[in-house]
């Protein structure tokens, strides 16, 4: 029982991290940036490459992985999506393009590193820690901590800093923000940079705890997307609640029916919300209509 709660906690933390990164991009750029899954994978593999191929120190490799993922996301925005946006691409077209990008990046990683499961190995071997009757690995505790820290810092970054204000303005209305003097290009770039940075965090955490494969991105992204939609557009508190709900539903279903059905349950939840409550738990219907 305690282990179930522990699993839910860890699962919710991971879902929240992926979902939050995705939602920063989604609410600002207003399309489903599926290539986010590839960024998650890329972050893990860049760190891996630094660690194993270039034999760089552990922390430096992680850092390069994170910055690499963020930079990759930023390049996608700057090099691709911005041009498409200037040619008045609809969200549908951007979605399809990002699907194509995901395929290309995933296969490039597959070619470069092979399809087998790899791990990011730390210099120390850390045993499981037992807290209140449930077992956590060190990485899982780290994941939960990072998730909580991200959520708390969101309040500071997004609500108090100028760039946070810009992000929120653009996600509310790009045209009005532009007229008000907010630099759309810079804000979009920053959104992608920040979101992709978080994607890198998720990827590296996953690689560290469980391992990584070139196809790891999509199964990680899907629950994040579900949480974003279930949580409601633009509300991070909603995302947090939705992450916990989704993690609970998934873990319970997995415990009852077997872990292989977790993804199906998550997607059934997604379909139910898309059909009957597209604004999610805490969102407003009017916001969707403006797209």
């Amino acid at each position: 029982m305690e282990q179930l709660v522990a699993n839910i906690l860890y699962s919710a933390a991971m879902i929240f991290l992926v979902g939050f990164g995705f939602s920063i991009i989604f609410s600002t750029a207003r399309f489903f940036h599926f290539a986010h899954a590839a960024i998650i994978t890329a972050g893990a593999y860049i760190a891996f490459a630094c660690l194993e191929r270039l034999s760089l120190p552990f922390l430096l490799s992680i850092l390069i992985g994170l910055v690499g993922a963020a930079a990759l996301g930023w390049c996608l925005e700057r090099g691709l999506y911005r041009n498409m946006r200037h040619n008045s691409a609809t969200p549908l077209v951007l979605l399809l393009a990002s699907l194509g990008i995901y395929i290309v990046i995933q296969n490039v990683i597959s070619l470069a590193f092979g399809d087998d499961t790899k791990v990011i190995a730390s210099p120390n071997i850390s045993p499981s820690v037992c807290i209140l009757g449930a077992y956590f690995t060190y990485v899982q505790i780290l994941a939960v901590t990072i998730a909580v820290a991200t959520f708390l810092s969101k309040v500071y970054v997004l609500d108090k800093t100028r760039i946070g204000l810009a992000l929120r303005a653009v996600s509310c209305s790009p045209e009005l923000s532009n007229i008000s003097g907010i630099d759309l290009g810079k804000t979009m770039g920053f959104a992608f940079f920040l979101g992709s940075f978080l994607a890198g965090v998720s990827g590296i955490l996953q690689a560290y705890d469980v391992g990584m494969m070139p196809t790891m991105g999509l199964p990680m992204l899907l629950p994040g997307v579900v949480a974003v939609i279930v949580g409601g557009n633009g509300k991070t508190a909603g995302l947090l609640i939705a992450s916990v709900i989704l993690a609970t539903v998934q873990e319970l279903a997995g415990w009852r029916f077997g872990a292989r059905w977790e993804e199906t349950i998550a997607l059934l939840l997604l379909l139910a919300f898309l059909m009957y409550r597209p604004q999610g738990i805490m969102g407003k219907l009017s916001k969707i209509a403006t797209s």
Partner: protein
Amino acid sequence: MEYILQILILIGIYIILSVSLNLIAGYTGMISIAHAAFYGVGAYATALIAIQLHSPFLVNVLCAFIIGGLFGALVSLPSLRMRDDYLVIATFAFQVIVFNILNNWDAFTGGPVGLPSIPKLTLLGFNLSSHIGLLGLVACFCVIVFTLIHRIVNSPFGRVLKAIREDEVLARADGKNVVANKVTVFIIGAGMASMAGSLYAYYIGSVDPTGFTVMESIFIISIVIIGGAGSERGPVLGAIALVLLPELFRFIGLPNSIAANMRQILYGGLLVAFMIWRPSGFLGKFSFYTKGSANE
């Protein structure tokens, strides 16, 4: 020679798949990445019925069409409430759910291993299980499906579909029963994809889930987009091009392990390129950039 026959069979199957998806996506404007789910449902339905009941080929194909059509009706429900990118997400979810069911419901679908040894295909007493026979059958189905689509698209029903694509609200205001039309077109498109699945099951001789993943769905919609959505011949050209091009990799000596990845990079890259520069595809009449068509 065998190799050429196999390529031609695959081209035929993908022509059926892309032409049927074109009906849903290109003519009615509902982009769907659930098509591999219908494809898989048809293949599995055929396999199950053929293995359990040893029924004749035409019965199996008919059953596959019906079951696929039912799944199509199911997928049409989200399309009544969502459009464009949200519909893509819904169909994406549906595709992954179906794949997971095929992959995980061991008792019914054989799980990741699938269902082996489908009985050989005999039609009217002729044993058609050789590749030449199968190619002839696939070609017949191609012609039938293509002709059907041609008739549908140039009929009043087809015009309503295009109207839905151009301006759904206007179509509804004009009194067209948009709901019935959307459900119908999904049933027809899904049923045809399931028939392609039937043929595929007989071609391979067994079914397993790996041929019906999300990537397969994306491949099929890429064919439709690159070939040209909303035109009759576009998907045919797309199917021929996207099945043949990766085979060229084999001729320039790429090892098999790399070839699979290169194939995906090819159509992923083409998808991005066409989305940037020519979203209506080679022969297409429907650009997804604005509601409404590019050239008409």
